[in-house]
């Protein structure tokens, strides 16, 4: 599988222990797993699915930095990643869903000054059905979060994004942004539910959602220069989701992710 | 009119004003200068009653009354005006409506009838001319989308509307080009009478070319360390604050 080569190239080792304090690791998800990222450590995790149902619990201790790249290419899988961030923990995550799958991310910011960033994209075509969700729970004051999820569905595909920003009472000075941007092509259907649930007053929370179409002018322009419709379309979609991949949580993954997208398109 | 004695104030645990003494009489213009972070804006905020700061010691007498016992709006209605360094934006609330309520609150306090719409419009036209404020601005939301210069002109326009006894202008000159500066300063000068007083807080001498002060004070580390006449401002412009600060350190 191309996956393993990719991982080898990145020099990641399979993760077997339940605690880590540094390094780059790969986890093939099967069943239930829990991993603790030790205090002050810097850890990178490549996550891919190797079973149809998985649950990964990540416990990120104080001052730890965790970078995650999660790729879902396996059809009909259900993945669940639940992250708990302690004081000043910083988690940056990239998720790419390229198959009929359910992918759920939950981030619990339980102590002050934790930071969570998620960049996600799903690309679905044919008869695929993708359901992704991102719940960010601000349980403590002074935390920040950023979620950007982009969705593309073409042909008869159906995509659904559910996002929640929850701000508990007393989670003052929460700074949170959530953005869901989507493109539908052909007979596809996209549903987006960006939700805010806020119980504290001194917060900066915003969310936005768009569902749009490809820029026909640009497509025409490209075709006028000799590109096929398919290529023009592909270029547009690539352009649309590119920033998610370019800013991959693990920089070295950007090229590989971009290859995966190309393949899918 | 204003008598400040040994004023101490802090925000949280941090003491910012450490014993200020100042007396301002009717008809006078005072300038307060000083390097960044010396407590100039805090001093202005405390006089206006900003609850962010706690007065820990000292007293302030204003028109024979204990100023510190009054709420922010009571101070305003008794003629204390603060021109803000950073005027805040209030979305959706038009300038005209905002000022109408303010003017009528002031009138009510003085036992006067509220202005009719026609009287109010007339007053607004007169006063906005003083600072060459584009009349269109009064139908826009308070400070929203105003340029830096417009915001400052707008402060002086409001001062003209409310005709304060004591105006404290906090860095009214910052961020102004030379034309705007001239307009704002001329506006302030035109509003000057024998009965009112002005305290100008500024970094630069250039404003004082237009608004000529009777006294210049230097605020440093929460205290007024030196006072003089208008020549002091010129000296500061030329020589900076170092000579004063050095003196102060030696003390």
């Amino acid at each position, binding site marked *: 599988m191309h996956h393993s080569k990719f991982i080898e190239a990145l020099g990641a080792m399979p993760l077997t222990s339940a605690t880590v304090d540094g390094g780059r690791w790969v986890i093939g998800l099967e069943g239930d797993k829990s991993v603790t990222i030790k205090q002050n450590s810097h850890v990178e995790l490549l996550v891919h699915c190797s079973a149809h149902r998985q649950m990964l619990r990540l416990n990120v201790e104080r001052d730890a930095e965790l970078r995650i790249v999660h790729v879902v290419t396996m059809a009909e899988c259900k993945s669940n990643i639940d992250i708990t961030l302690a004081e000043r923990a910083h988690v940056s995550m990239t998720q790419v869903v390229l198959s009929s799958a359910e992918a759920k991310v939950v981030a619990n910011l339980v102590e002050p000054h934790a930071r969570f960033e998620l960049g996600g994209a799903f690309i679905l075509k044919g008869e695929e059905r993708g359901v992704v969700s991102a719940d960010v729970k601000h349980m403590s004051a002074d935390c920040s979060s950023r979620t950007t999820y982009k969705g593309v569905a073409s042909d008869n595909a159906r995509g659904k994004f559910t996002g929640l920003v929850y701000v508990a009472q007393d989670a003052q000075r929460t700074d949170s942004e959530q953005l869901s941007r989507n493109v539908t092509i052909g007979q596809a259907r996209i549903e987006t539910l960006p939700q805010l649930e806020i119980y504290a*007053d001194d917060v*900066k929370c915003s969310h*936005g959602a768009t569902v749009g179409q490809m820029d026909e002018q640009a497509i025409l322009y490209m075709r006028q220069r000799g590109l096929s419709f398919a290529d023009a379309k592909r270029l547009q979609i690539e352009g649309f989701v590119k920033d998610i991949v370019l800013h991959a949580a693990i920089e070295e993954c950007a090229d590989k992710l971009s290859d995966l997208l190309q393949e899918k398109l | 009119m204003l008598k400040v004695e040994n004023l101490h104030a802090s925000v949280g645990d941090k003491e910012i004003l450490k014993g200020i003494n100042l007396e301002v009489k009717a008809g006078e213009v005072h300038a307060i200068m000083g390097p960044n972070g010396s407590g100039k804006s805090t001093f202005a905020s405390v006089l206006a009653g900003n609850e962010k700061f706690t007065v820990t010691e000292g007293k302030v007498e204003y028109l024979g009354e204990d100023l510190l016992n009054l*709420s922010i709006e009571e101070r305003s209605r008794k003629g204390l005006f603060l021109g803000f360094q950073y*005027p*805040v934006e209030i979305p959706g609330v038009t300038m005209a409506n905002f000022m109408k309520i303010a003017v009528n609150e002031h009138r009510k306090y003085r036992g006067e009838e509220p202005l009719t719409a026609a009287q109010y419009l007339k007053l607004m036209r007169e006063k906005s001319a003083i600072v060459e404020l584009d009349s269109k601005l009064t139908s826009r939301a308070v400070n929203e989308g105003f340029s830096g210069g417009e915001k400052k002109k707008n402060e002086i326009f409001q001062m003209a509307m409310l005709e304060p006894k004591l105006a404290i202008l906090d860095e009214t000159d910052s961020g102004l080009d030379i034309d705007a500066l001239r307009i704002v300063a001329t506006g302030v000068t035109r509003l000057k009478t024998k009965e009112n007083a002005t305290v100008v807080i500024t970094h630069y001498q250039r404003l004082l070319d237009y608004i000529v002060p009777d006294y210049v004070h230097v605020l440093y580390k929460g205290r007024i360390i030196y006072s003089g006449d208008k020549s002091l401002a010129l000296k500061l412009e030329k020589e900076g604050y170092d000579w004063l600060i050095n003196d102060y350190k030696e003390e």
Partner: protein
Amino acid sequence: MENETKNIINELEQSDYKYGFVTDIETEIIPKGLSEDIIRLISAKKGEPEWMLERRLKAYRHWLTLKHPNWAHLDIPEIDFQDVIYYAAPKPKKQLSSMDEVDPELKRTFDKLGIPLEEQMALAGVAVDAVMDSVSVKTTFRDTLAEKGIIFCSISEAIKEHPELIKKYLGSVVPYTDNFYAALNAAVFSDGSFCYIPKGVRCPMELSTYFRINAEGTGQFERTLIVADEGSYVSYLEGCTAPRRDENQLHAAVVEIVVEKDADVKYSTVQNWYPGDKDGKGGIYNFVTKRGLCKEGAHLSWTQVETGSAITWKYPSCVLLGDNASGEFYSVAMTNNYQQADTGTKMIHIGRNTRSRIVSKGISAGRSQNAYRGLVKVARDADNARNYSQCDSLLIGDRCGAHTFPVVDCSNPSAVLEHEATTSKISEEQLFYCNQRGLSTEDAVGLIVNGYAREVLQQLPMEFAVEAQKLLAISLEGSVG
């Protein structure tokens, strides 16, 4: 069995009659609870034709199969539907002999709202001839409307006088199968308004503004039907800015609007029902279904200012069925103390080139919970559908909640849909600035809130916009300090 029931009803009816059941006081003793008998009784009391009764019964039987919905972000105490009196004819109000007897708190609110004394008296239930005289004004009014062929009457009257219109349109937008409360309303609705604007007619006045006083007391299960025929226009205003001290806890109204080809309807609501006291005791439960059906080129605009009720559950919606139809929803929902609101809209794009716009401004204070819930749905054939939604929340105090639950569901690739939401609070700097210019904190908060809600308030007919502004300020009382 059937016969037996009928006999009982007949007997009941006759005895009603015999004992003067029609007087207000007697209506009080209609038994609590809901059953087919009660529905027959309601229908009979209203002198309805058989077909109407059949409709009610059908709805009731359907309602029996439904469960109380619980998906909203609301904490609704369990309601015992057998503990409700369903025949809620206008409640007999204690007649007061002068304004001095009126609850001073109520009086204070009237004054703040600037309601003329005559109306104050009527609203507070003071017997006064002056207001009764306005009936004559109302009559001239009706003449003007009749000249244009506009029908504006109570729904009970319409059932009798315009059965063909009622048969055609009642339940055509909100069928009894729609939801729990729509079914309940279809079974037991007490009264409401009916309005028909004929083809090409532009209604010359804001409907119902004049009937503000009369609209009072229409009961707990209100039913409104507005039909704007091809190319017509009407602006309709529901509600009243004055506080309503209604003892009925449960209100479940249904409003249906049919907007035929190229017609234009503007529906404005100001809702200020009793929200309960400072500790969250009492208050109205307001569970409303409002929907409009827009045919080709039709336009429907909903504007609502919601400050009352203990619990509000309400989503005025637009079904954009015809090509080029457009819908708008402008809302200010304010909650204070222990109030809960779950409100928003649905924009269903079915026709081509359909457009919708949503502007929602939530304000939560005290310990209240305020949620926006919305759906923008674009069906497969709704080419070039456009929606823009903006949902802002303002929090006042740190014990309240503000929530946003939008759903955007798009099945057409040429649709462009945008949703934006922000959450903010009144900043200390804004308050300080206003205080420094001489405004009290209460006035400053009122001003800032009105500024925040301005985009919506601007949509209201002039005279109500002013009252609504005052209302917002009053509803905020005690939330800062």
